[in-house]
């Protein structure tokens, strides 16, 4: 086994991923610039949250890329988020109400920081940044899931979405989202092609997005809702 950690600068950690896949037990290390023994020093709670954070990497990378327009800087953003998170105290971690909201804000802030460090801001990017949707700038933004949990009207809306899905699509959503089956398992259970399962899930996602948007459950509405909740 090659014990040299491959470099990761500017790329997704393909080489590092392979290296880490060879390591026994600890799979978090491949996302971090830590060695596996450093990862093992993290508390169990922090490791669990770190795994949840890593699960958000597609979203965080996308946000960073939208702001920096640079794959290398976006990768650095991810690394910085992981490193900063690993250094948080237990009390700071307990204060995080929504890991997703924390991570989204961290990705945005780190992306702007990386731009500043790379001295690419503001002149080069000012025109681009003007076009950024609120999603990237809104400090009040909250995890949609957390809002759904807290708000009865949104739960009703989700129920409406569910009821209007075609029967087979509904079954597939339940099997995937509630019973947590993989698309392969769903395809076996229902006797349909895996591609059909994915197509139905795409249909449900597009319908959910369209309905949520139509009802104004987007940046502005979330902000308003949050303000109302704070006043309440």
């Amino acid at each position, binding site marked *: 086994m090659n014990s040299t950690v491959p470099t990761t600068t500017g790329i997704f950690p393909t080489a590092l991923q392979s290296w880490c896949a060879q390591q026994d037990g600890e799979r978090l290390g491949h996302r971090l610039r830590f060695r596996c023994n450093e990862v093992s020093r993290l508390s169990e709670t922090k490791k669990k949250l770190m795994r949840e954070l890593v699960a958000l990497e597609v979203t965080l990378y996308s946000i960073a890329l939208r702001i920096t327009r640079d794959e290398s800087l976006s990768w650095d953003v991810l690394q910085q988020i992981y490193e900063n998170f690993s250094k948080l105290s237990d009390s700071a971690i307990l204060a995080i109400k929504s890991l997703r909201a924390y991570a989204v804000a961290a990705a945005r802030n780190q992306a702007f920081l990386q731009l500043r460090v790379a001295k690419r801001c503001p002149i080069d990017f000012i025109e681009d940044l003007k076009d950024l949707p609120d*999603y990237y700038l809104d400090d009040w933004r909250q995890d949609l899931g957390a809002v759904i949990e807290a708000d009865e009207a949104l739960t009703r809306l989700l129920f409406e979405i569910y009821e209007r899905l075609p029967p087979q699509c509904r*079954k597939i959503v*339940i099997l995937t989202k*509630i019973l947590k089956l993989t698309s392969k398992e769903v395809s076996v259970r229902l006797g349909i092609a895996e591609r059909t399962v994915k197509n139905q899930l795409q249909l449900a996602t597009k319908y959910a*997005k369209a309905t949520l948007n139509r009802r104004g459950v987007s940046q502005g509405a979330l902000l308003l809702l949050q303000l109302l909740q704070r006043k309440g």
Partner: protein
Amino acid sequence: MPVTPPNIEDVAAQWAVELSTSERTPELWAEFRKWLSRDPANIDAFLKMEEAWRALNHIGKLTEYPRNLGAGTSSQIDTKETSNSLTP
């Protein structure tokens, strides 16, 4: 006959589902990054679609819906029944 380019929303939905339901191989990552980098509008579309996909995670809460939210609901999600009826 001109070929209609794929709708950006369709592709974004495809990626949101694909990245959550398939193994994230280096090839899949590379393809995704290529698509993301092609146009900032792709990133915006993906993030919104990914959020809708995540919102569907909360459909599990609806198993409690009629009991929690009371009158006027026409049906209840019965995961147990669905599960049993679908068991081979």
